[in-house]
Structures are given as C-alpha cells and as structure tokens.
C-alpha cells in the first residue's frame, strides 16, 4: 500500500499528464475526447471481467442507461451537475438489482451471458419503441429510434450558461478518466479488490473461507456499471444526442473486443484496446474499400485464436524477456479469467 501512494500514484499522474499534453498535438481533441470516453467504458468491463471474472455481455446497457439518464435529467433540471451524478448512480443502482438477482441465484458463465445480453436487448427494444408522444419523462420525450437531442450539455456547476465544451471538455474527460483509474487501482490494492480476484480464481474456495461471494460480486458489478454510466453521461455530452444504438448488441460486442485485444487482467489493457480500436475504426471509416464490421470481426477471431491474453500482457512479457528483468511473468492467463466461475467441486 505504501509503495502505491509513494510510487504508483505519482508515476501514473506524470504519465497521464504527459499524454494529455502530447496527444492533442497528434489527434484532434474532439476525437480524443471520445477515445477517452470509450477508454473509460472499456475500463469498466475490464474491471469486472478481468478482475472479478464476471463476463457481462451487456455492458452497453449501463453505458446507454447513463447517457439516457443524463439526457433526460438534463432536460428536466437544466443544470448539468445533478444529471451527471445521476448518470453514475442510476446505472449503478440498476446493476446492483440485476447483479443481486443473478449472483444470489448463483448463475454463472453462459447464464450470466444470456441474462445480461437479454437485458440489453430489452432496453434496446423498449427505448426504440418509444417514438410516440405518450413516452415522456418529465419534460423529456424519449423519441424512439431518433433518440433525444437538444439537452443541456455540461456547464460549470451552478452556472447553466457557462458551457464546458471543446478543449476544456477534453481536459475534463481526461482528468475524470485519470481519477477513475486511480480509484480503481486503489480498490484493487484494497482487501476488497484482492478478494474479488480470489473470487475470480475460485469462487467456491472464497465462499468456504466465509466471504459473502454474492454480495461482493454484486458490489463489483455495480461499480463497473457506475463507471460505464459515467462514460455514458460523458458520451451524451460529447455527441449532444442519445440514441438507442448506445444499447445495441454491436456496442456490447465492441466493449468485449476492446478488453480482449487490450488484455484482460490488466488495468491499462482495456483502455488502450478501446482507444486504439476506436481510433482504428475512425481511420477505417474514412475509406470504403473494406467493411468496418468485417475487420472488427476478423480482429476478434484472430485475437481469440492467436493472442488470447491481449496486447498489453504480450508486450509486457516481451519487454521483460528482452530486457531480462527477473520478474515473474504476468500470472493470470486470460483464458482462465474468461471462464472464471466454471469450476465445480
């Protein structure tokens, strides 16, 4: 713990500050902002999947819920501060309920996948069908497929006319991501985080030690949803419109791909995977030779087959081999993480 505050925190802040300073010289801040947001979204799944062994096929549900919560609350309230908080709290509460239902029912693996996937679909179908004028929350019309445009975007707290947009918004998102990153790092160093990893490794054993596995998984799941919701709220501000596509299965698939490509069981992997692949998609979007979806699909298949641990662990072990540091290789094979909870006995 001591080395965490003395070394890791300052080091992370310095690296982050350098990146925040350098990156805008290479990529426009508007694009960078969304990359950061996706990074945060990838990070949210990376936390619960990579460290908790919970494979959620519906992380997009919390992202979309955060975005919609923000949009609806912003229209009704006007000032952006409370909506932003709600964008974190509502998905977290929703995830806590859903998680409690699943984890106290001891659903694992495929069943967890089915339920999270289905819940995402329900939200998608429901929100898509709300085109009629009867679907109103306060002053906000849900708008079906067209989504909700024209809500109050981020402002200085208490001063609704001082908008935060453009470059300042980029810095705002960057600092938020840094804070979330540090908080999660601290969480993983804490007893809670370490027991969560224990649960990923062997749920039965942790239960036999007397820990309440269901409660712990539920809490972790809700924390992941809170981060995804925050990303959703930020995304709503960036795009200035929310649509049902935020909930779509395609979005969920992408989050999973980010995590695999970046590397599960690492903190930085899912962030790098998300930002990297989203940027790649942005670059590919400017050509029409090869279909984007096709490439995403190939990337996923190739990674599952040939580099199941993901980029960051692979590069890290390459680094260690070439520079001969006598440290242990990364311990947690991604393959085992992915099927966490499958053990019997």
């Amino acid at each position, binding site marked *: 713990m001591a080395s965490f505050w003395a070394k890791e925190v300052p080091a992370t802040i310095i690296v982050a500050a350098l990146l925040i300073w350098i990156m805008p010289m290479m990529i426009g801040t508007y694009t960078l902002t969304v990359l950061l947001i996706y990074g945060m979204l990838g990070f949210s799944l990376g936390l619960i999947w990579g460290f908790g062994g919970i494979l959620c096929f519906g992380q997009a549900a919390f992202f979309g819920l955060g975005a919609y919560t923000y949009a609806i609350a912003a229209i009704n309230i006007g000032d952006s501060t409370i909506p932003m908080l709600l964008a974190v709290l509502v998905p977290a509460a929703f995830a806590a309920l859903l998680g409690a239902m699943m984890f106290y029912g001891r659903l694992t693996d495929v069943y967890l996948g089915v339920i999270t996937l289905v819940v995402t679909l329900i939200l998608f179908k429901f929100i898509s069908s709300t085109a009629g004028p009867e679907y109103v929350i306060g002053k906000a019309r849900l708008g079906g497929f067209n989504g909700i445009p024209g809500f109050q975007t981020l402002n200085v707290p208490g001063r609704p006319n001082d908008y935060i947009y453009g470059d300042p918004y980029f810095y705002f998102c960057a600092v938020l991501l840094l804070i979330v990153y540090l908080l999660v790092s601290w969480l993983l160093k804490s007893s809670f985080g*370490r027991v969560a990893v*224990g649960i990923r*490794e062997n749920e*039965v054993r942790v239960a*036999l*030690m*007397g*820990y309440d596995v269901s409660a712990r998984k539920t809490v972790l799941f809700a924390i992941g949803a809170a981060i995804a919701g925050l990303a959703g709220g930020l995304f709503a501000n960036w795009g200035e419109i929310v649509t049902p596509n935020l909930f779509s299965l395609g979005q969920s698939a992408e989050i999973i791909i980010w995590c695999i490509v970046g590397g599960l069981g690492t903190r930085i992997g899912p962030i790098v995977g998300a930002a990297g692949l989203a940027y790649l998609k942005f670059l590919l979007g400017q050509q029409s030779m090869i279909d984007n979806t096709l490439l995403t699909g190939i990337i996923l298949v190739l990674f599952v087959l040939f580099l199941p641990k993901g980029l960051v662990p692979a590069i890290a072990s390459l680094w260690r081999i070439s520079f001969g540091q006598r440290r242990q290789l990364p*311990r947690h094979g991604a393959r085992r993480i992915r099927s966490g909870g499958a053990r019997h*006995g």
Partner: protein
Amino acid sequence: MAEIVLETAGLTMRFGGVVATDNVDFKLRAGELRCLIGPNGAGKSTFFKCVTGLLTPTGGQVFMRGHETTGWNPRQVAALGVGIKTQVPNLMDGLDVHENIWMAARRFLPMQDAMRKASEVIERLALGPIARTELGRLAHGERQRVELGLVVAGDPWLVLLDEPAAGMSADDVERMSDIIREMTRTAAVVIVEHDMQFIRSIASTVTVFHQGAVLMEDHVDRVMADPTVRNVYLGKKA
C-alpha cells in the same frame, strides 16, 4: 466433559429413492479428533457435505456450538469460524501461496494482522520456500498442505476435512498428521478418510459408516479389531 461443538440429530439425505445418509446422530466435543470411515457409498461424504452446507439435508438437524445450522450454505458455516477442506482441492490457482493464505486470514482479521498471520501460518506449515509461487505450479502434496494452511489461517474452532491425505506420498502424509495433531490443540477436527495408515498415525476415535448409518464408534484399534467392521469395510476392500 468438554462442550459439544458439532451435533447432528436424525440427519437424513435422500437422492431420489436412494437414502445416502440415514438418520445419523453424531456428537463431537471440543478438542476431539474424529475420523469418519466406511466403504465407498457408505454415506460419509454425503454426511460431510450436509454438515458443511454443500448439500441441504432432506431431514434432521445440524447444530454447531448451539447454533442450528441446518440448511445453511457453506459460507455461513465458514463464517461461524469453521474451517472446511473439500475433497477436490479448492484453491486460487492464479494467486501465490501467501496471497491464498492471507485471504483466509483476512476474513477474520484486519489487513496488517492478516499479513502477520499469513506469514506465521506459512512458517508453521513449512511453506516458506514456495510462499511466492502461484498455486497452479505446485505439486499435489504441496497444494494439499496449502489448503490446510487456508483452514488454519482462519483460526477455526471446528475443522472439517474431506480426504486430506488423498493421493499424497508417505512423507507428505506424515507431515499432514503433524499438522492435524497440532490443530487439535485449538479445534475439534473431523476427517473423512480412506487411508487407514494415516488414521492409525493420528490414532483417533473413529466413526464407521455403513449403508448410510453409523455402524460403530470407538478407538481406531478397537474398530480395526472388530469383526463386523472387518467384514463390511476391509472384507469388501480385499
């Protein structure tokens, strides 16, 4: 006489038409070391699972230090301060020995105390040289020993072990008996075991299961000499 720490009354477990454990009354006092033996299918493992909460018995009751624990899940049982080792090794393979044991200690102790406790257990079980090796890379005997370490780290007053000596070498078994004997200084211990050598070496009272019921309960030497036991247990084995 010492306090009764574990008691079952009429414990019964049916699987469909099969009665695996039939109306078992069982008492264990503080500081006692008890082995459960019996041929395959005698019901000892089912009994063990009902007591630890891995199975919910279809009839009867379980009491631990006066709490009725019938139908509790293993977590609740463990949270009472009961150390459990299942038949299949249950360990966190991706974590090292120290982390495994620390986690067991952390359940009942604050962070720093748990650290001290883990180091202490590691020393006591002679796991020092492999303390930073992850479990997935250890040999079977070492893994069994680490699992005992997990049980010890929680400072249990009741220890339930399902076949702790299974598949171990003679050296390992000997070391295991030492550890278990040491456990009995602070806890009552129940062991489900096949290995008669091992049971003799810890020289305990033995409860013999046969066809779901308790056949007899006595010191290991007298049990071994008993003709009925020889018949159902050893006779079948030979």
